[in-house]
Every structure is written in structure tokens, then in C-alpha cells.
């Protein structure tokens, strides 16, 4: 097999993949006189078009992806990304328009923003949305800043933010970046927020509780209303991490549960593709009282059209240039319009059906720390395999690669040791679900019969297990010309 080198290793003078038209203005010398101009960009590559195309085509084939198969990365909602959404989003009217264009020349874009804000408000049961944040984490930061700004307005931003121990790492990190000290709230034996612990910690110094619902175990916080009451009673806000909205669309609405702020990931629930790690989009929805604090600008109706409003004195300001990851938002609109009210409900229903089908099919072979009913995902652990055969979740994950499926999320949430977090989403076929279940079942058997095979997995991939320790101990983060 051809192992594709780095482009730098095949670069050479005299090759090229690009030419510009000849300069059509009189050439001037010394335009940069007095400034430091570089005569060359050292080691910058130079290759032919066929080499470029083969380079990326070959490399592409070393990626697993949703279009190739099941991708049960828990918490990431790796659903199918509809092709029509890709098509409509590259319309020249969208991609060519400059964000500083006069408003009357970009009415279509402004309408897109408004339509998505309105749809998300209805779906989440919130009063207003901002689409500016680029991803979930930036949504969290934005949401927490909005809360803080409001509290400041009331005279005291407070000191603490409460976060369950099952939460995603971005939650504490975002709260911290917002100037808060994080306090962890314990999970109870159901894997949900321990109400007692919460009540104890929820003081007048706490700005907010950041809760994920359904939480990272896939368990719905049954007492969410009580939780909201506890938080509200002390003048705090309830922040919901909406990463798991895929379990709830059309079924129930965070706004109806007492949630004050929520972020939603368009790259999860609303099918925009993950792109190998972004771009995403992390819109933030708020209740009325918090709307004045949302980032500027806001899209507003102006006459028969739309406009941008910048003059919002209470706004936290900007977290991103312009209006966020606009072209991602376009795709989400296409998705929402394709699904309609019934389709939106159906995604949640089938996501939950698929996850429970997997859970039920594997619960003999893999340990479930929490047996609470779950919705759109389920978190197994490697306990059976580890205790008896020394086989870890890592070994199981790597062995799945040999079977041709992407492994689940590992080692998250932290409250499940050796976690295997499985989120199938609603778009999987029965065949691909069964293929995964069969692979997992076989692996459970292999753990008994031949654990060494698992520990050495994967066996058939382009590279085998990589030395991550060496990578971190002695970081090589770029190519260096061995000849220089």
C-alpha cells in the first residue's frame, strides 16, 4: 500500500498546481520600500495538481466517517448529514455575500438568521436566540456571560457556578472563563442530580446551575422542575447544556422546564456536518429577562424586511466577528424546513428507540453502572471485561476498529469508570445497528476467549495503536526540513 508522505516530502521546484492571470496593472517597484519583505517562505511546499489531488484523496480514505457507517460517538450526535443541505448552502447568494454589505443587499441572509432564531425558540421553548457562538463551548460562555451581566445589573455577579460531576468538560471551563468558581454537585444512585447536595450548595452566592438534560448518561432529570425551583429560589439561573436535545425535539421543551438559558449544537441536533472537528454552531436561547444581554448585533424586523440592531447598551458585546458560522446556520435551516413539526418529533423518538435497542441488546454482555431508564444514549462500562480478563474500554474500542465500526465515546462521563458511551442517533439502519451489536457481542466473547487479541487491536488499520505518551512527552508538532 502507498503510504502517503507529508506534502513537504514530495515538494520540489518546477512543479505547480496553480497560476494567476498576468498582472494587469502597471507594475510598481518599491511599494514596500523600507519594510521587511520576505524573499521566500522557507520550506513552503510546491507540488503539482495531480499530487495535491492524490494526496488528499488518499488521506481521505484513511478517515472513517458517517457516510461510511455507524459512528456511535456518545454525546456527539453523529447523525446523517443530508446532502441537500450541502447543496443549498453553496448557493452564490449565500457564499459570496460580504458580512458588511448594506442590509438591503443581504435580506435573504438576514431572513435565514431570523427563521432559525424563531424555529429554535419554538423548539426549545425560549424567548430569544443568538446564533453568534461558533460551537457549544462558545455558547456556554456566551450564556454564562449573559447570566453574569444580568446579575451584575442586579448588583452582584455572585461567585459560584454549580455543575454536576457528570458534566462535559466545557461546562466548568466555560464557567471559569466567565470568572466563576466551579462547585461540583454530586450525582445520586440514579445518575441524576442529587437534590440534597444541590439544595445544600445552592446559596445566594451561586450564579447558576449548569445542567445537561438528558444528562450525559442519557438519563432525563426527572426532577428538573424541582431543580429549577431550588435554583430560582436563591435568585440563581438554570443553565441547560442542550447537547442532548436530540432526545427531546418535539417531545418537551427546556423553556417549559424552568430553564433560563440553553445552548444548542446545530452540529449535533440539527444535522450540520462535523467536518472532522468543526465548524459547528452553538446558538444560545434565553428567557425574556435575559434578552437585553445577548451579543450584538441582533437581527430585527425592519419594515417589510430585516435589519441589524447594534445599539443594545446591556449587551455583553460580541463573542465572534459578524453573525457566527453563517453557512452552518443555513444548513440547519434547510434541515428544520425539511423535517417540519412531525419530522422533528420523529428524530427524538427514533433516536430513543435506537439507543434502547442497543442497550437492551448489549446489557447482558456489558456492565451498566446506572440502570435508570435512558433516552437517546446509554453508557456501558468495561467492568465485566476488566475485572475478569483485564480488558479495558480502550481495548474494546480499538477492537471495534477491526470490525469496521467507529468506537463509542470513551472515559466520559467521568462518573462511570471505563465508560463506553453509545449514541446511535435516529438515522441508523437496522442493519448497521445489528452489525454494531454483533461486533460488540463478539468482542465480549473474545475478551473471554482471547483477551490478547483485544489488547493488541486494531490489527488491520492503516496504522495500529499509536504511542500517545511519546507524542506528549516529546512533542513533534510540525514537519522540520531534515536538510536544514
Amino acid at each position, binding site marked *: 500500500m502507498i503510504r502517503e508522505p507529508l506534502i513537504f516530502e514530495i515538494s520540489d521546484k518546477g512543479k505547480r498546481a496553480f497560476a494567476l492571470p498576468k498582472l494587469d496593472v502597471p507594475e510598481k517597484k518599491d511599494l514596500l520600500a523600507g519594510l521587511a519583505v520576505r524573499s521566500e517562505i522557507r520550506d513552503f511546499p510546491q507540488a503539482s495538481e495531480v499530487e495535491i489531488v492524490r494526496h488528499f484523496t488518499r488521506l481521505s480514505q484513511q*478517515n472513517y466517517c458517517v457516510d461510511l457507517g455507524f459512528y456511535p460517538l456518545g454525546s456527539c450526535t453523529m447523525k446523517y448529514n443530508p446532502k441537500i443541505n450541502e447543496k443549498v448552502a453553496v448557493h452564490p*447568494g449565500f457564499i459570496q455575500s460580504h458580512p458588511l454589505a448594506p442590509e438591503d443587499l443581504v435580506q*435573504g441572509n438576514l431572513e435565514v438568521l431570523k427563521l432559525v432564531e424563531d424555529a429554535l425558540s419554538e423548539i426549545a421553548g425560549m424567548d430569544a436566540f443568538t446564533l453568534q457562538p461558533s460551537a457549544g463551548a462558545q455558547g456556554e460562555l456566551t450564556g454564562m456571560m449573559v447570566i453574569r451581566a444580568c446579575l451584575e445589573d442586579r448588583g452582584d455577579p455572585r461567585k459560584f457556578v454549580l455543575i454536576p460531576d457528570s458534566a462535559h468538560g466545557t461546562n466548568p471551563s466555560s464557567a471559569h472563563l466567565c470568572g466563576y468558581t466551579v462547585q461540583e454537585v454530586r450525582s445520586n444512585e440514579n445518575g441524576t442530580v442529587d437534590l440534597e447536595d444541590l439544595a445544600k450548595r445552592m446559596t445566594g452566592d451561586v450564579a447558576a446551575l449548569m445542567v445537561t438534560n438528558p444528562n450525559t448518561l442519557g438519563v432525563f432529570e426527572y426532577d428538573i422542575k424541582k431543580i429549577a425551583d431550588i435554583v430560582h429560589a436563591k435568585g440563581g439561573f438554570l443553565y441547560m447544556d442542550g447537547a442532548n436535545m436530540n432526545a427531546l425535539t418535539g417531545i418537551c421543551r427546556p423553556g417549559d422546564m424552568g430553564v433560563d438559558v440553553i445552548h444548542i449544537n446545530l452540529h449535533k441536533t440539527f444535522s450540520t456536518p462535523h467536518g472532522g472537528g468543526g465548524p459547528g454552531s452553538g446558538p444560545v436561547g434565553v428567557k425574556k429577562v435575559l434578552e437585553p444581554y445577548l451579543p450584538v448585533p441582533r437581527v430585527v424586523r425592519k419594515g417589510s424586511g430585516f435589519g441589524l440592531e447594534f445599539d443594545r447598551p446591556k449587551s455583553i458585546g460580541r463573542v465572534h466577528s459578524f453573525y457566527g458560522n453563517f453557512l452552518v446556520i443555513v444548513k440547519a435551516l434547510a434541515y428544520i424546513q425539511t423535517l417540519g413539526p412531525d419530522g422533528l418529533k420523529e428524530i427524538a423518538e427514533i433516536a430513543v*428507540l435506537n439507543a434502547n435497542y442497543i442497550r437492551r441488546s448489549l446489557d447482558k454482555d456489558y456492565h451498566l453502572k446506572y440502570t435508570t431508564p435512558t433516552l437517546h444514549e446509554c453508557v456501558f462500562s468495561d467492568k465485566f471485561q476488566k475485572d475478569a480478563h483485564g480488558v479495558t474500554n480502550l481495548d474494546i474500542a480499538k477492537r471495534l476498529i477491526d470490525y469496521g465500526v467507529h468506537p463509542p465515546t470513551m472515559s466520559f462521563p467521568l462518573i462511570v469508570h471505563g465508560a463506553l458511551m453509545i449514541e446511535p442517533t435516529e438515522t441508523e439502519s437496522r442493519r448497521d445497528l445489528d452489525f454494531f451489536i454483533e461486533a460488540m457481542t463478539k468482542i465480549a466473547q473474545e475478551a473471554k476467549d482471547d483477551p490478547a487479541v483485544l489488547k493488541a487491536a486494531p490489527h488491520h488499520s492503516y496504522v495500529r495503536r499509536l504511542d500517545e505518551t511519546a507524542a506528549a512527552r516529546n512533542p513533534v508538532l*510540525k514537519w522540520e526540513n531534515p536538510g536544514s
Partner: protein
Amino acid sequence: MSYIALSDKDKKEMLERIGVASIEELYGCLPDELKLRRRLRVPEAKSEPELERSFDALAARNTYPRFLSFLGAGVYRHFIPATVDYLSARSEFVTPYTPYQPEVSQGTLQIIFEYQTLVCQLTGMDISNASLYDGAMAAAEGVLMAQRLNSRNKVLVARSLHPQYRETIKTYTRNLGLVIEEVGFGDCGGLKSAELEAKLGPDVCGIIVQSPNFFGVVEDVAKVVDIAHRHQALAIVAVAEAVSLGILESPGRFGADIVCGEAQSFGLAPGFGGPFLGFMACKKEHLRQLPGRLTGQTKDVDGRRGFVLTLSTREQHIRREKATSNICTNQAWCALRATIFLETLGHDGLREMAVQNLQKAAYAAETLAKVKGVRLKFSGRFFNEFVLELPKNAQAVLDALKAKGLLGGLALERYYPELRQDVLLNVTEAHPKDDIDKLAVALREVLR
């Protein structure tokens, strides 16, 4: 359409296996009173032909592309080779996620590694991360990083830094006790170095300066770095027009500590402002404070080279509230496009593009400054943007040009109230000479 892949039979059998009678039953773990007892009030489902028609109509309400535009200000229209769209559209690049499982993600990982290398080559820095959201956020992260590095709590910000970057820095730092102070610009359009010198003190963690700056003027980065370093402050250099790195000396060469910015110019369409590509690079010694993902080279058990995400102890999923940043999902696909773009252009292509931008902008500036009453506002050397001072209110002139089908740039008054008669114009390799001449003719007519 809801993109469900189960047949009626599948659903039935699956419910049976689970042991419930209906999906409704699976939602038994929700309190009844929370359940929405009505259909969502969103428009009814559209079929694919209807959707296409309605998006065609939406897009057609953007009449912007029909205008001849000289808008830049941080968002540039550059030529994008066909390889970029073609290759980046491959499912294997569009539909995976963050390469958590390196054995099935070597494509993405090797490309990020190449991207990191290209950014280092262009910026002259030791280390680059795998991307940040956009230039504005990268600037904010740069300031936060500087603060972490020397624990001082004041940051100086060039007033000639992109206004939206300044706003974003303000937002990001507002709850962290950082004090921001601005440093003005002089007649040349560049940072006033005397003012910088004066404002620097032992409480200043760093200065962030953009070059070419918001007015297109190339800053004296060497001098800024030198002044900053003399005060043990860090020099953060922002680059909003990444093509300039094809010809201008790299900030790293001048000793910059952190280089951050926007790489939209590398293969990303203006796209009404996003997705773009924030980048950040730094010196080796600052590695542990660098935010964002990093890809590193290593070996597999058979000794073959491979790539992995590395040094994640800086990141939120390991360090939680102590992470260098809260970023998780970044702009990987945009970085992929930038990588394809840069490797397609290659050394000579990127240089040629930079040269043409420089030359065309110079031609435009000279041609437009010949129009009666119009003059170049700043004396500093510029790359592909420049500010013209007009004989009257800038917005009025722009409105008149617009009526003729031209967008003659950005009126600066909104961002710099003192610049009432000033317009920022951008010219790239994508503007044929004819277009520039057309603008000159129109401007002459409008000002007559």
C-alpha cells in the same frame, strides 16, 4: 422527510426486543406535565424540490453578488482553486468528527499536522494549534494566553486593530479582571510608538497589534516587539489578511511571542461572515499555555509514523476549569480547506497572489487619489487595503456609488467617529483593472 432508516417492520421488531409496546413508553421517564401536547409551531415539512426552490428564492434576495464590491475590512474575496471545493466536499472530510480515534482518522490528523506546519512557516513561529473559531476569538485567546504567561493584568490594544476583534477581546476579558487600554494611530495610519512606550509599565502583560492593520497599513512590527520586550511585556501580532504573509516578513522573524488571526483568505468564501478560520501560533516555550487542539507525530506499535491529538492536558475535557481554553469543536474543515488552498497555490502561487494584491491595491489607491477632492488618508505603506479621505461624508458618497452598482468600501465613521469622510477599500487579485477603473470613473461622477 426525517432521514429515518428504519422500516415499519424494523420498528416493530425493535420495540419487541426492548420489551415495550410503543416509543411513547420509552418516554415514561419524563414527567407527564413536561410533555408537549401539541405539534411544534414550525413550518410544515418541505420536500426536496420545494426546499431547493425556497432556498433559491432566499439566496436570490441577496442581491449583493450583483454589485462590484470593494469591501474588505477583515473579509476578503480571493480566488479559490477548484481543488479546494472538490476535495473538501469528500464525505470522508465532511462527515467525521474530531479525530479522537487516531487509527481511523489519519487523514484528518495528517492534514492538521500539515496545516500546523504551514502556519508556522507563514508566521515564522515554532508552534501552531489546529484552529480557533475566527480571527476575533483568536485575538481574544491571544490576550488571555499572554495574561496567563506573565500574570499581569493590563493589556494594550492597538486602536488600529480590527474593531470587531477589539470588541471580542473586551467581551472575553470582561469577567477576568483584565484592564484594556488602547493605543492610538498616527498620520501614517500605524500605531503611535511613543504612546505605546508611554503606556507600557510593569502591570502590562502585552500589546496586541495588527499588521497589516485595519486600515491596511503595515505596522512596524519589529519596533513594537522591541518596545514590548523592553518592558517584559509580550508582543501579540494579529493578522487579518493572511495573504499578506506571502510577501511581508513573518512576525516570528521580528520576535513576536504570539501570532493570531484570521485565515479566511485561504480558501474560504466571504459566506456572510462564517465559518472562518482562527489561527494561533506561538513560541515553543509557551506551548503549555497555547489554547486549542494540537496534532503531534508519533509511531505505532509497528514503528510506522502516525499522528495523534496530543498535549490534551491543556484542554477542557481533561483539565476542566483549569484548561487553557474552553474550546472543544473548532474549525477543522476550514483548516482543511486552507491546507488544500495553500498546497495548491504552493510557494510561488501564494507569493504571486500576494504580489498582485499589493500591486493592484497600489494602482487603485493611486488612481482613486487622482479624483478631485480625494486623498489617501494615511502615509504608511499598505498591502491590499487603504483609506481614502473624501471631500464629503463618506456614507453619502457610498450610497451614491451604490446607486450605480458599486460598493466603494466601508465608511469608517461607525468605528472611528473622527473618520467621518473616510472609506476603507480593499483590492485583491480578483479585481481586474477594469473594475478599478470603473470605480474611479463612478467616484469622479459622484463627486462632481
